[in-house]
């Protein structure tokens, strides 16, 4: 059973066609990684899923329902959320206000406070900093906050755009463990990552995106063994 199905997708910005003929599946409870070099269209793919790019052709269905016509601001209502790569927090709001923005449409105060508590349990450092303005956080704390905000809607499928970009190497491992934990708790994940080695170690299956097209698709474990992948993506 697939939670997300993308079929024959063409998309881009304005007149610039970036993604062509893309088909991608994410299994219910699965952890799918998309790896590829800079400029392959990875971010564009996630932005297209989230209705932030122009879609020319193809379908995107979430739980069998077409979501290409749903506006970006309403996608978090149906159990989907997105952690963008850069500028994933509001720097002039406090940590608490950022998390509150995460569940801006939720009416029930109990739900908000229980989710807030869960985020604080998962990332205790955020609770320590809850009154601090988010612009003053360190890179790792920012990423935790960005993931925390996305969790405030309790999504079934989380799109993650290079969550470890720009982080100190010592923090990368920890963040990947946090992300993998999200998956073992039952959330489906679609991760876009340049750090292919890490991504393939934690993900179940992976797609290789190059020049806006899918080049390869296999189980992560197989890709990790493939010589071509080792040559192109895993060697330093």
């Amino acid at each position: 059973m697939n939670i997300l199905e993308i079929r024959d997708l063409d998309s881009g910005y304005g007149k610039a066609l970036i993604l062509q003929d893309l088909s991608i599946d994410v299994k219910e409870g699965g952890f799918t990684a998309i790896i590829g070099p800079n400029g392959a269209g990875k971010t564009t793919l996630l932005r297209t899923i989230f209705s932030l790019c122009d879609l020319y052709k193809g379908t995107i269905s979430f739980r069998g329902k077409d979501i290409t016509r749903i506006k970006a601001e309403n996608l978090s209502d149906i159990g989907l959320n997105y952690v963008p790569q850069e500028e994933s927090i509001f720097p002039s709001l406090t940590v608490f206000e950022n998390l509150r923005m995460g569940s801006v449409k939720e009416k029930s105060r109990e739900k908000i406070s229980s989710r807030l508590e869960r985020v604080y349990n998962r990332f205790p450092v955020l609770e320590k900093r809850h009154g601090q303005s988010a612009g003053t956080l360190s890179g790792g704390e920012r990423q935790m906050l960005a993931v925390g905000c996305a969790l405030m809607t309790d999504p079934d499928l989380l799109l993650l755009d290079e969550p470890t970009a720009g982080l100190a190497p010592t923090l990368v491992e920890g963040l990947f463990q946090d992300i993998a934990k999200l998956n073992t708790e039952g959330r489906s994940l679609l991760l876009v990552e340049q750090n292919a080695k890490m991504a393939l170690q934690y993900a179940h299956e992976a797609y290789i995106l190059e020049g806006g097209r899918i080049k390869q698709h296999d189980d992560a474990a197989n890709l990790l063994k493939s010589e071509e992948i080792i040559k192109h993506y895993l060697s330093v």
Partner: protein
Amino acid sequence: MNRGRKTRPRHSSQDGVYFAMEDLLSYGLLTFATLALPSLGLCLAIKVTKYFNLAYGDIVTAGAFLALLMNLSFKINIGIALLISIALTALLGVFLHKVVFKALMEAKVGPLTLLVVSLGVGLVIRNVVLIGWGPQPYQFNTPLTRAKHLGPFFFTPNQIVMILICILVAIGIFLMLRYTQLGRLMRATSDNPSLSLIRGISIEKVYTYTWIIACGLAAIGGVFMGMLGTIKPGMGEEALVTLFACLIVGGIENPYGAVVGALITAFAMEATAIWISPPYKVVSAYLLMFFILLIKPSGIFGREKIQWKYFLGFLRSRQ
């Protein structure tokens, strides 16, 4: 912004310096009361929507004339006329946003295109007002009151009420921005509109509320300008660059800066009027703006250092 300076003769005493200082304090505060709220409104509009709306000056005019319509034609008390004018001007702002600017913003045109369009919108508003009321100046029908000395100040009761309204409304807006959900939404949208969409914020609604607040403040400013001077179709256009001077002095997207900038600009203008030449008081606001742009473009509260080198090093610098 022609102040009716007939309340008493200036420099009437031998002790001219004392009276000049007193004038500066009184007129400075009054000018501040006319500038603070519209500059705060313009600041919020720019902060959230990220473009300079040059029709804002004419929205100030519209606010003054809507109050004039209530006050003169329907014989409504000026206080109630002000409230009705706030509501109607807010409605006008929302209408303009929905009809003109929304589609352009969704088409992702640049801030400069929106600026040019807002000029056209301003031209339309100004000339509709001109057709409706003609070029001659008007005054509100307000009960006559006597000016009184209050410590170093010299105000009529109306003027005291104006200054109090101005300060209270400004504090109210600050509290709203800091502590309410709408304030948080406005700050979030200002920080990053596309992330706001991802978080599920309807930024279109935030824009609408921002325009309601900005145009409400414009209406108060227009009525206050009319209370102190006269009401004519070009008043807002004249005030527009002064409002921008207030914003630039305080830092263009900083609401506290907008009010402090209005205070500084108001006193600079009145000091010019007293000691240099009354016709050049507006020019002094512009010069203050150029000076700030020259040495510290982010305003007096900006993080960058003062760049004195712009004064001297411009011919030598390669960049």
